[in-house]
């Protein structure tokens, strides 16, 4: 192998080919080849010196949660051998695989990625979008899917309770729960009350086993989606793009290349997994996965990611948005835009609503315009209780354009006393008009 890496031109081509191949892995909704995925998993267990696990396959996160709850009784989940304690929820968690039972040695990853950055062809970066996708999917799983499942299970339990009360077997179940004292107690308080008590007891224990929101989140946090793991893609890129010269210690080169290859194989073959000592719960691929030209999760007319249980992640060019913004853009109103506190989601709403239409329909007046942005004002009718305060917003644009040449435009609210665009932008950074003069802006 060439010790100095490949010539630059070839490196760029290899990098592009690698990115394309990885995007295809992320976007795959093909039926999982379960034998292949199990072989990949067994190889990782062996690497950790563990016995071949039993396998349990599920098709969506809801079933996965159920399987996790049952599997975690009396079994230890595998943890990343390089981390201790709480791995947090921030971006660094994904960047360093803190949660991943088969994570690489972080010191090695850090060194390798730094070196890769130095050698990477101009402007090429391995992290970024991949990290962001991983974080978005993870947040969605832990925050949305968990609570959806909770609500669904709650509804199922209510239905179950009604069914149980009607069931002919209810009395025999109640006899079983109450045991020897059935006769004496039913003489004392009546059969109906005893059945009611028994049914409630059964439902309560079911709830304890399956239903606490906290453990749903714990379960979803333990889920790894290997195709969204950015460290794997970056580490895989090193030998594939840069040449194996990056593995500095010659004697470890073969073993480290094999470690990366094992992780890549799992990402290519499985949709997700929970790893326990002796048992692996494996998740099929999603039924839909959409990305934009930059590899960000995105779909214009449906969820960017979805599973057979209806769990769906709605994203617009990497921004997680409420479902209705994508599925029913006609429902976006000026009031809804005004009420959205997240600047990124508000931007997507305005894009879909139409910035010109917003200015027209909201009756905005241009107060000032300069190289920093445009300042708009809207007057609301005064209410009986207080004089109305005009809504003054500064329209600003990202300095770095999108890949298609378009520029993201944001509207930020500023104090109504401001009359000048530069002063408005300066105010958003806590500065006065003359203090705001960044030498570089991206």
């Amino acid at each position: 192998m060439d010790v100095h890496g490949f010539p630059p031109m070839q490196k760029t081509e290899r990098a592009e080919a690698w990115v394309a191949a990885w995007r295809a892995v992320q976007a795959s909704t093909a039926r999982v080849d379960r034998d292949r995925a199990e072989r990949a998993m067994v190889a990782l267990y062996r690497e950790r010196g563990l016995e071949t696990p039993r396998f349990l396959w599920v098709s969506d996160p809801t079933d996965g949660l159920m399987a996790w709850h049952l599997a975690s009784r009396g079994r230890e989940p595998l943890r990343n051998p390089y981390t201790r304690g709480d791995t947090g929820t921030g971006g660094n968690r994904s960047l360093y695989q803190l949660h991943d039972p088969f994570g690489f040695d972080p010191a090695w990853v850090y060194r390798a990625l730094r070196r890769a950055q130095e050698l990477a062809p101009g402007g090429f970066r391995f992290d970024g979008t991949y990290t962001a996708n991983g974080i978005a999917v993870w947040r969605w799983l832990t925050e949305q899917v968990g609570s959806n499942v909770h609500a669904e299970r709650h509804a199922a339990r209510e239905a179950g309770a009604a069914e149980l009360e009607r069931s002919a077997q209810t009395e025999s179940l109640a006899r079983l729960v109450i045991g020897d004292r059935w006769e004496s107690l039913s003489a004392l308080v009546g059969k109906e009350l005893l059945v009611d008590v028994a049914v409630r007891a059964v439902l309560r224990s079911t709830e304890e086993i399956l239903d606490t929101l906290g453990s749903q989140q714990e379960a979803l946090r333990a889920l790894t989606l290997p195709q969204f793991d950015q460290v794997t893609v970056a580490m895989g890129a090193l030998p594939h793009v840069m040449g194996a010269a990056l593995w500095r210690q010659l004697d470890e080169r073969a073993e480290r290349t094999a470690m990366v290859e094992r992780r890549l194989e799992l990402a290519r073959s499985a949709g997700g997994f929970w790893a326990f000592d002796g048992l692996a719960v494996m998740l099929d691929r999603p039924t839909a996965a959409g990305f934009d030209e930059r590899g960000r999760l995105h779909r214009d007319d449906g969820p960017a990611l979805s599973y057979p249980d209806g769990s769906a992640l709605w994203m617009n060019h990497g921004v997680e948005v409420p479902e209705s913004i994508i599925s029913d853009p006609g429902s976006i109103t000026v009031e809804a835009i005004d009420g959205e506190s997240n600047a990124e989601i508000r931007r997507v709403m305005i894009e879909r609503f139409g910035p010109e239409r917003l200015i027209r329909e909201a009756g905005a007046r241009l107060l000032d315009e300069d190289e920093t942005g445009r300042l708009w004002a809207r007057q609301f009718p005064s209410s009986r209780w207080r004089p109305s305060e005009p809504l003054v917003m500064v329209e600003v644009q990202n300095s770095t354009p999108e890949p298609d040449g378009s520029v993201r435009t944001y509207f930020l609210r500023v104090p109504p006393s401001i009359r000048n665009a530069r002063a408005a932008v300066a105010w958003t950074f806590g500065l006065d008009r003359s203090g705001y003069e960044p030498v570089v802006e991206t």
Partner: protein
Amino acid sequence: MIQRGTRLHRSNDPVPPAAPVPLSFRQGDVLLVEVYEIPEEAEPEPRSGRIVLAEGEATGHAHAIHERDARTFTYEGERFLLTRSKAQLIHEEHDPIEVPQGSWRIVIQREYEPAPADRPQWRPVVD
């Protein structure tokens, strides 16, 4: 060369000349403003991995610095960054910025929010 008519500052002038505008760099909703020094009482923040200056809620993107000799501090609710050598400020969707060696105040963009007089009339930009 001083043009005719330019007003020169003299020590007995009632109005001192305007302070020079501090050096600043902006990446999206993060502004780094150069400060003369970081207050001595500032509390160093523990560091593990890269330094995250700001993180997007809806996107998972982050404005971050990887250089090992960079440190952050907090003082009276403000964050400061110390770069002991050149550092790259990177973000997934913005071009990287090369931050020179120095001391910086980290400013996160804010938005106006009407509120009762006893509460702040603004909130940080959330994205």
